[in-house]
């Protein structure tokens, strides 16, 4: 039997911004974020609310598992460029 993996959601980092900056996911479900850093500089996906921090080198990608999360909003930011790189996960 083939087990289905968690849903995959792509996030891009470009010009020190997250695209999309609002990530909607189903509540109470584990989700796999595929974060692609299109900038030449490194960025760190960070969220205390999600209990995740992950450094992503320039022009590379990383996988971040989140959830299952209760319904609500969970902000995240890029630690290396926190003024611009801001976003949130919305579990609904």
């Amino acid at each position, binding site marked *: 039997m083939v087990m289905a993996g968690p849903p995959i959601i792509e996030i891009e980092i470009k010009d020190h911004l997250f695209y999309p900056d609002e990530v909607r996911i189903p509540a109470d479900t584990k989700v796999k974020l595929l974060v692609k850093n299109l900038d030449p500089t*490194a960025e*760190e996906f960070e969220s*205390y609310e999600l*209990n995740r921090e992950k450094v992503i080198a320039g022009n590379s990608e990383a996988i*971040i*598992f989140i959830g299952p999360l209760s319904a609500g909003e969970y902000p995240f930011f890029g630690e290396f460029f926190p003024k611009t790189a801001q976003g949130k996960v919305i579990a609904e």
Partner: protein
Amino acid sequence: MIVIPYVLVVMLLIPGLTLADDLAVDKVYHPYVQPMEREVEWRMVAADGDHLQRLGIGQSLNDRIFVEGYLLAAEEGDTFRLEGYELETRIQLSEQGEYAVDWGMIVELEKAHQEDEWELATALLMEKQWGRWVGAANLWLEYEWGDEVKDEFETAMAVQTRYRLSPAFEPAIEFYGGENTRALGPVAMGDVRFGAGKKLHWESGVLVGLSKKTPDTILRLLAEYEF
């Protein structure tokens, strides 16, 4: 998974081992590695008027492997001297949140400064989150050898339950168990940020000895600067 037989080997060896020589209170390791991470670390464990300090510098090689070298110094009575050297490799085995438990492992090689005394140690690192609570456990299997020490296997364990109150302050309870150690007590920790990619992580705790061979009170301090 390869970790299952590893756990079984450690658990089976725990009851039958001879007395360990050292206090098994140090720190609780977490099974995560960040790429492009460098750190300078200082930690101290003090009990009965003596203390052991470690000063380390570490660097991740990629997103799975982190290596760190330490100098160990001890104060016993009025003497403060270099005690030994340690090389440590931490390996992240699974992504955080990928499985029900996050897995990692660590391998350490320690050499006494002057004596012919060696120790090779490995630990399985586990971590699990329940809402704002996080539990972490380290299961150690160690082998000592040399002219100045009895060749023997030892085991130890460290367990931490932490409440994620805020980035600056998280209370925790830790338990350390070894052949000569049973210690339990409150620990606090937190992060102070200094800018992009730079932060100071601190930990401080007071543990109470639960057995006759464990000192009544053990102080542990840690400061780790990531850059």
